[in-house]
């Protein structure tokens, strides 16, 4: 090959001596530092495979001198994250649940923590957007069976509703009136219930149902039909129906009763998670102020000039 080496006239540089169909290559060697850099990279690469897991063996791979593993790194990162969260979780744990919304930063953190926990534990019944479905309450709206302030929500999550074998659970039971009302009576009670929320105009049938309602239903649903939260008795005058507000659904409810169950979460989740869940549910748009403050606010509203007051709303 080297016999063909010659000096190229145009450049004054020697050729390498190869020739392909008349095409020749000039000999312009790499600079030395380039070659040394290449060797250094090779050495680095070899050292790397010794320091870190690399070479495949029959059943596993070499472990590497540093002892690094991706699982180990993950554990380390998870621990660092847990350490980072620890102070704020401790702060949430230390604060009474009713006071969490008062602490802007704590509340925001609790809402996000609750959002994550909700996605794991609650979406099976309440849906991923907490919008519920038939028999499972929508947590976004302003209608609450057992109360919508922080304390009430916290109590509901902690002890559940009609949770079996849990003494502290929220308990009430609607009787099945199927055997008690005569068919005509049943029809008039259904008509009366529908008239309460304006689903149906008041007429003779609903008027006939009024005394029956007064005799059988007011203990839980209230004299005015607006519900009794202590009993979990739904408000029948609003537009929100857990099991449907049409005639057939109401007839079904009265005849056979309903028995919605929610587990008590205190045995499955830690106290801080439950507080965060309460914060999240409270933040969805229907959250109520603590009972005392709520009454004061309600009293103040008619007097306030909305245009002047509302922009100053305390939003943080």
């Amino acid at each position, binding site marked *: 090959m*080297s*016999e063909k*080496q*010659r*000096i190229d006239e145009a450049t*004054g*540089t*020697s050729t*390498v*001596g190869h020739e392909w169909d008349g095409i020749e290559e000039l*000999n312009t*060697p*790499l*600079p*030395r*530092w*380039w*070659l040394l850099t290449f060797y250094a990279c090779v050495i680095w690469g070899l050292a790397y495979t010794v320091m870190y897991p690399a070479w495949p063996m029959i059943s596993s791979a070499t472990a590497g001198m540093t002892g690094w593993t991706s699982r180990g790194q993950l554990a380390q990162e998870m621990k660092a994250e847990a350490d980072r969260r620890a102070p704020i979780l401790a702060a949430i744990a230390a604060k009474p649940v009713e006071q969490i*919304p008062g602490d802007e930063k704590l*509340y925001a953190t609790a809402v996000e923590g609750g959002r994550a926990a909700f996605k794991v534990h609650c979406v099976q019944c309440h*849906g*991923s*957007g*907490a*919008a519920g479905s038939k028999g499972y309450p*929508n947590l*976004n*709206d*302003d*209608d609450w069976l057992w109360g919508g302030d922080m304390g009430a929500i916290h109590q509901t999550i902690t002890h559940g509703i009609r949770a079996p074998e849990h003494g502290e659970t929220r308990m009430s039971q609607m009787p099945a009136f199927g055997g008690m009302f005569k068919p005509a009576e049943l029809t008039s009670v259904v008509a009366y219930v529908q008239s309460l929320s304006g689903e149906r105009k008041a007429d003779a049938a609903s008027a006939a149902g009024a005394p029956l309602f007064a005799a059988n239903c007011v203990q839980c649903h209230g004299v005015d039909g607006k519900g009794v939260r202590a009993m979990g008795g739904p*408000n029948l005058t*609003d*537009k*929100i129906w857990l099991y449907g507000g049409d005639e057939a659904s109401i007839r079904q409810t009265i005849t056979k009763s309903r028995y919605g169950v929610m587990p008590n979460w205190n045995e499955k989740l830690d106290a801080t998670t439950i507080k965060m869940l309460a914060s999240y549910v409270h*933040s969805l*748009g229907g*959250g109520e*102020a603590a009972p005392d403050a709520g009454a004061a*606010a*309600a009293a103040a*509203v008619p007097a*306030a000039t*909305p*245009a002047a*007051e*509302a*922009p*100053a*709303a*305390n*939003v*943080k």
Partner: protein
Amino acid sequence: MSSNNDLLVDSALGVYQKRRGVFPKIVSGNFRRFKWLVMVVTLAIYYLTPWIRWDRGPYAPDQAVLVDMAHRRFYFFQIEIWPHEFYYVAGLLVMAGIGLFLVTSAVGRAWCGYACPQTVWTDLFQHVDRLVDGDRNAQIRLHNAPWGPAKIARRLLKWSIWLLIAASTGGAWIFYFSDAPTLAGQLFSGTAAGVAYSTIFVLTVTTFIFGGFMREQVCIYMCPWPRIQTAMLDEKSLIVTYKDWRGEPRARGKKQVTEDGLPAGDCIDCNQCVQVCPTGIDIRDGAQIGCITCALCIDACDKMMEQVGRPRGLIDYCTIDDAEIEKKGGTAKPIIETLRHPRTLIYLGIWTSIGAAMVFTLGQRTRLDLNVQHDRNPVYVALSDGAIRNNYTVKVRNMEARPKDVTLRIEGLKGAVAWAGESERTGATQSVTVPVAADSVLKVRLFVAAPSEGPERQDFTISALAANGQEKGDTDEVVFERPAGGQ
């Protein structure tokens, strides 16, 4: 080996080539003076910029040029760039690119010759060489001398000065990313962030190696720019040209040669152009990739021509077109006409329009920005009184360095009220005022309730205005959704 081996210029065919030292001689002249000026200006900009103060009030840093990574802000005098406005930075980079094309098209590799950091720092390091070892001949002598106490002492001194320059180069860089006086204090008390020290270390090492040992190797082997630039040069670009039609044949001892009756050009073969070249090339071989067009050979040659009583400009900036004209005995066009060639003007046009567009949009931008996202899960919520509520995640960006009260107002939705965050529907109106901290984004949930009667999907607007009504606000068009069929 073959019998042709004696043809080979260098040693036998090898896999690598050892770097030949370049020991450029000091030169004086107009281009050298210009290089001094550029060096002083560019180094001053680099080292001093982070220390310029700029008062922005109590809510923003008072450093004129600051890349605040932690808070994701870029400050440049009175301009503040947020991450979503990064297109301004992209625009600057595009301008820098086209600016290089423009310069290359007009005056050849002027960037390489004068302003490139590699050139500026190499020049600085070469001056250190001269300061410690003496000029070219002394440097070569020391280079070839065997290692002894004197050489070791000289080398240690020189490398220490290099290292000092390198460390302060790396040190200056980090001040662009944090408050300079604070960071300087932390740096020397050992309390600065680890990344500050590692950045300084990396930049010190690269400056030391690139400026001290690699020098022209960076330009010839590592930098892609010479290849791109040589492809961009055309016959109308100014390049450093040895006017061979005037200089050849070279004659050392010209008088003798002419007396002997042989032809002789102006080049007296004094080799000054080679000796002053910072990349160690011979410009008389013609345009080549190693030529960074620093024009020091022009200075050197002009001086020699003056001494032998010949006209200056044997080596000069010249276009290929002009060279052809001059070869035929004509007079080259004046430089101003060379600069006016279409390609240069097109680059200039693109460059200035991008700049003008950026300045224009910079003047038009609002410092209050609204971003509304309709919650999709659930799309709507039926309320106990039959009304429908939609939820929106609203982000209000206050891009000014002072806190603001911002009024969010809904328009175009009959009978609707809005409230936000933890406030209540009772008493809500069509607007909500929220306080937004200085230079920050407020994320708030906006609840909008409207009667259930209406179309399934209804467009309306949410606007954000500074509560004092002074500044330009922002408006977003959003959708309100109701259940199918209504109630």
